[in-house]
């Protein structure tokens, strides 16, 4: 894998992670209201799972400590955020050449897909 592809993948993973954290924060704020678990519990759950999956990518783990999460302008609302995460993870799957990286992104994509359904 060339250096520039690695850089690009690292940046994409970092963007996805940043967006997922935003979604988590959004869900967790909503979850402070009792009785809200059936609306925001699955969102928080899947965002957390997706983040965990991404963090197992060898390229990701080297980056988190060193780099600040990148931010990307995104469509409004939780649905818009999730759509951005999905696009970002899709790009990451495409960029990943190392099977470990690829697998981590593919696994994150499972949760992002569920996350999107949890926001329908």
């Amino acid at each position, binding site marked *: 894998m060339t250096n520039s592809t690695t850089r690009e993948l690292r940046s994409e993973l970092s963007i996805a992670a940043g967006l997922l954290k935003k979604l988590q924060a959004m869900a*967790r704020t909503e*979850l402070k209201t*009792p*009785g809200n*678990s*059936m*609306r*925001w*519990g*699955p*969102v*928080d*759950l899947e965002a*957390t*799972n997706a983040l*965990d*999956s991404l*963090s*197992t990518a060898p390229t990701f783990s080297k980056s988190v400590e060193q780099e600040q999460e990148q931010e990307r302008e995104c469509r409004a609302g*939780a649905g818009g955020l999730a759509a951005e995460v*999905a*696009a970002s993870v*899709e790009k990451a*799957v*495409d960029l990943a050449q190392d*099977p*470990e990286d*690829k*697998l*981590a992104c*593919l*696994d*994150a*994509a*499972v949760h992002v*897909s*569920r996350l*999107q*359904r*949890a*926001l*329908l």
Partner: protein
Amino acid sequence: MGATFGDLIAVADVHWAETMEWLEPLELSWQAGERSTISELGQTALVLARYAERVGTGFGAQERETAAARRARLCAASLRETASVLQGDEESVPERCELARSLFMARQALGCGLDLLSAHFEVGERGLLPTTAQSEVIASPSSTEWLLTAVDGYASQLLRVVEKAGRTDAVAKLSEAILHAKPKRSPEDQGLRATTMPEPRAALEAGADEIELLPERIPLRGGEGRERALTGIRANVQWLEASGVPQSARTWRSLATSTLMTSEISGQILRLLMARCRRLDLPEATDALAEAEMAVGELADKWTGVTAVWREVSCDRRSQLDQMMSDAGELVVRLGRLVYADREWRPSANAVTKLVRPQVLAPEAVDVYMITRAVEDAIKAPVAVASNALAGLKSGQPTGLTPQGENQMKLRHERLYRGYLQARNTAAEAQQALGRATQFLVSADERRPGRLAAESFPFQAREALGLTGPEATRTRSRGPGKGARLTPG
């Protein structure tokens, strides 16, 4: 630990399941005909064709053509034709819709898996040559059959999407491919498959005795009736009770969230039942339900605490969800559909939270009784989940955490143990209060037989209230009659 072929097939399978999740609901199935989906269908057919081609030549290592290799070659040819029928204007593929994206993920996983297998061979003068100890295994007849069966399975799922997209041209080609890939049912083949596909189901067979005692599974259906829902709730809970300590950390985490939802929805149901009991002038039952509602409210707080711990512990991706999650998920959906004004209710950010009216939830005392019983059943789930978790924590579980997660768990082990313990105790209190409420409902009925006798189904109602003695409990699964089905067990 490197990514294995098995890891990639496993994640491909989950993405196929996700594809079907996007395909099945009526309001989402338009995605099947999207241009991005059609293009992905073509690409996926190509990846499957590559599998069949590799199998057809034994990864290049095969010297003579076997029957399986011939089938694989024919299958590959049909898959390539399918792909060419579906290939459109590749220059401007639009942004993928969710269904197309799930297909993309599935084919990426399959493609990467094939690359891993192919890495055990290298290009020689006459094609690929085996280079590692595993090459022979990969090119063996049993692996060939396994791979062809896999191609058959994936192509069949692809066919469902192609059919939904209304692409009859591709349907014909793809059906041919499937026909070629289908295993020929000779006894030898069966034996081979048994040796090469040790599936997790084998573990279930070992405990066959236990499984016989469990009720038949009642898969969740859209718009299912009240009787099926209540029987389904009981079956879900019984399966959950029997499933023991979760195997994977992600199942622990998911169970915490779904149990929180179960508790909160149960509280909501109890509030409606209280309103109904007041209206029906059943003061003792109202009080007992109020007590249960208090306990269930506290229970939700306890589970909120448990989910908070699971947010802070990193779970490894090599931890697929256990089967028990489908029971836990169905339980939430069934409870939600009892109480929210949406027959197709599912938990989601935009889920309907408008409640049905109390008289709709439980028109008569007998209905109050039955729904209370359903909540009593449902609250067995938190008891079971917490008890299993406590047992697991004592025996060194959960496994399947990331190295970072292991450390996080060490710091939180005690807090988590305490959380589950309190959750279990509170759930037990709620159960007792619910038991008292059902007793009051039964005795209220005994004191006022005319109340139910005035209805058109006094016999069934009495039976449903458990007044015909314990023998009635065994008739539950026999007849389709309302009374028999809903008799408490």
